[in-house]
């Protein structure tokens, strides 16, 4: 019975794919101008168009660049202008920042920072900063020794070290300005999150969903790194900064100290719920938004209850940290469906008016469009293969869970979709205010799951899930999709052999860029999904691409290669590439300052004094 239900659910998922994959829907996919949906975004703080000063470019997390120099007519001529290898072999996940004439990069562990001078031929190194984090952190990071991004503010490069420090480095000199210790790595927590800055605060969230940690999120002062406020995810309301301002939309999230009472005994203390993903900010509401990870341990029968506030999203006052509302995507998460993916802040037409919403592609396979002022779920539709829930009930915000999807201790339950890593992971999507669509790399896979009882041992995994992951219908592990956040449906999709675990960037000329784990970097028509250019690179891509204007007024597109991170779950699949660490920077024809035929004399030769014939020198 269980099996037949699962098969039926799987078929439903397959049917969903057949309807949507690569198939234009009611709204034509070849719409050549105008918006598909009427959705728009506030692109504050409206940085100069050619700069890329924060990981997602704007507070709303759109990853939209208004640049148009590279367009559909010339994108086929993109070639490598220059490249840069940083020598570190763990997975590369962040996007370069470009501030003025300088590019800033930070490696995965040991988290070395580089400043590159874009005004000079070949972008030479201006300075290097080596923070020398504690190598014990290597054994505590669940999913490779990664860093998802870094921030620039107030003349400083600010970022997390894997060993629970946050550092600020003088952006002009590379000298450390401050370094603060935020947790004890020996007990399991690490820092892999991309620091996010608004005004005088930098927002940091902890990692460690599989390590029995006590997840937290805090605001540090940009000037000296001191903690301005700190909110634990679980536990008593006081520690979670849940007070009189807290007004969740749904009644089952209302009540006192639910972060304690929705757990057995004191298990919330090892309940993880670590906010290791993206942060977004609405300047009008002065609210920040971020998600929380899976509960610990991953074996759900050990922690009966809703397990608040795991696998959820929080809206908080940016100044005080006081919670405004929360929404738990996956109550009593049984499958490791973290809620940490990006929340893209847009405005949509809704029932004759307009709503300020967030769009969130959850690991659980549903894409949520949520009113970000109230926490009301307006749309929740599958964006890929899933069979754990038949739907999200919009009357109460709860998923309707399929009986056959519940894991059982010491028994293999087959074909639960998606597996732990989700239909999409942390890899950030992009939104275009021109097309009104979101663009995201997604996964097509299921798992056979056997659960085990585990005990809490500080500093060791607190996990319990044994999985065999397998590709879904079609045999392709991944896809890249365009998504309508108002109707809750796909507009087009491109199948890929492996999970599409890169971020995306979309431009003012309606080009979307993304990369694959088998090393292809592609440019796609944002309206039709037609691939316009592909380049094979030296390793798989699990980082976010970006685009900028150089000092030579030329538009470049850049992406880090270096497959790794959670994507390593496919390391034994055909096509998975060896690790790497090279940043590739592309321009039309590979042109750039002093590159190609514009440099026919070596730098040393050019810098040498006028040469004197040897014979004359002897006189």
């Amino acid at each position, binding site marked *: 019975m269980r099996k037949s239900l699962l098969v039926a659910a799987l078929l439903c998922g397959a049917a969903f794919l057949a309807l949507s994959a690569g198939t234009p829907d009611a709204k034509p996919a070849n719409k050549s101008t105008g918006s598909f949906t009427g959705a728009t975004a506030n692109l504050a703080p409206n940085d100069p168009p050619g700069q890329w000063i924060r990981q997602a470019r704007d507070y709303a997390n759109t990853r939209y660049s208004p640049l148009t120099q590279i367009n559909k007519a010339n994108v086929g001529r993109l070639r490598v202008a220059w490249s840069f290898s940083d020598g570190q072999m763990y997975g590369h996940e962040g996007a370069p920042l470009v501030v003025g004439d300088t590019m800033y990069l930070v490696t995965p562990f040991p988290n070395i920072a580089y400043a590159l001078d874009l005004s000079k031929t070949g972008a030479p190194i201006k300075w290097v900063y080596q923070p020398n984090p504690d*190598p*014990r*952190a*290597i*054994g*505590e*990071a*669940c*999913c490779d020794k990664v860093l998802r991004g870094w921030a620039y503010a107030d003349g400083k490069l600010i970022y997390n070290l894997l060993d629970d420090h946050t550092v600020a480095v003088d952006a002009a000199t590379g000298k450390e300005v401050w370094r603060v210790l935020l947790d004890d790595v020996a007990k399991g927590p690490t820092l892999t999150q991309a620091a996010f800055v608004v005004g005088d605060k930098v927002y940091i969230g902890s990692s460690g969903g*599989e390590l029995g940690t006590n997840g937290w999120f805090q605001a540090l002062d940009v000037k000296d790194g001191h903690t301005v406020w700190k909110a634990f995810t679980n536990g008593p309301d006081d520690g979670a900064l849940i007070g009189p301002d807290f007004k969740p939309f749904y009644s089952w999230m209302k009540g006192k100290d639910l972060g304690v009472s929705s757990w057995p005994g004191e298990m919330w203390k090892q309940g993880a719920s670590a906010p290791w993903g993206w942060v977004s900010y609405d300047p009008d509401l002065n609210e920040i938004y971020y998600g929380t990870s899976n509960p610990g341990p991953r074996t759900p029968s050990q922690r009966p209850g809703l397990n608040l506030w795991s696998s959820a999203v929080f809206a908080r006052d940016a100044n005080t940290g006081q919670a405004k509302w929360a929404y738990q995507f996956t109550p009593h998460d049984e499958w490791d469906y973290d809620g940490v993916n990006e929340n893209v802040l847009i405005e949509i037409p809704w029932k004759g008016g307009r709503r300020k919403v967030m769009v969130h592609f959850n690991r659980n396979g549903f894409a949520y469009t949520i009113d970000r002022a109230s926490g009301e779920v307006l749309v929740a539709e599958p964006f890929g293969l899933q069979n754990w829930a038949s739907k999200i009930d919009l009357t109460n915000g709860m998923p309707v869970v399929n009986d056959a999807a519940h894991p059982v201790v010491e028994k293999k339950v087959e074909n639960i979709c998606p597996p732990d890593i989700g239909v999409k992971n942390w890899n950030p999507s992009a939104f275009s205010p021109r097309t009104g669509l979101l663009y995201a790399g997604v996964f097509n896979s299921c798992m056979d799951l*056997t659960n*085990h009882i*585990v*005990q809490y*041992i500080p*500093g*060791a*995994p*607190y*996990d319990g899930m*044994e999985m065999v992951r397998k590709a879904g219908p079609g045999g392709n592990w991944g896809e890249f999709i365009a998504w309508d956040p108002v109707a809750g449906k796909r507009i087009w999709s491109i199948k890929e052999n492996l999970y599409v675990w890169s971020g995306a960037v979309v431009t003012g000329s309606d080009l979307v860029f993304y990369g694959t784990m088998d090393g292809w970097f592609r440019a796609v028509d944002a309206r039709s999904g037609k691939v316009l250019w592909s380049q094979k690179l030296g390793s798989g891509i699990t980082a976010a691409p970006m685009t900028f204007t150089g000092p030579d007024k030329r538009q470049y597109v850049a992406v880090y290669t270096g497959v790794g991170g959670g994507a*390593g*779950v496919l390391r034994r699949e055909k096509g998975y590439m060896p690790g790497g660490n090279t940043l590739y920077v592309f321009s039309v024809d590979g042109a750039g300052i002093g590159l190609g035929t514009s440099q026919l004399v070596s730098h040393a030769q050019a810098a040498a004094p006028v040469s004197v014939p040897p014979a004359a020198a002897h006189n």
Partner: protein
Amino acid sequence: MKRIAFVLALMATPAFAQVTADTSNPFEGKADAAEAGHALFGKMNCAGCHAYDLTGGMGPDLTDTSWQYGGKPGEIYHTIAEGTPRGMPAWKDKMTADEIWQVVTYIQSRHQ
């Protein structure tokens, strides 16, 4: 004097004898020890890093022929007991010597 005698007595028992790289596994090839090691591998959360099938994930693959800290029984014992500078916890305070040897036996059994 009494204390020295106690320490000497301890060292004389196999459980607390100093293990070197060349120390042989007292349970080598014993199926019941391997099975006990299998249970410990799950119970002590080893599987969380090295996977239930020992093929690695967060930590290294224990079924291949690459050993960062040595693949002889005594070396594997040492790695489990003392941990590594790169984050492998030390288990000597959480498992007895016999238990560590059982885990070593289980790991060895997966190499046959």
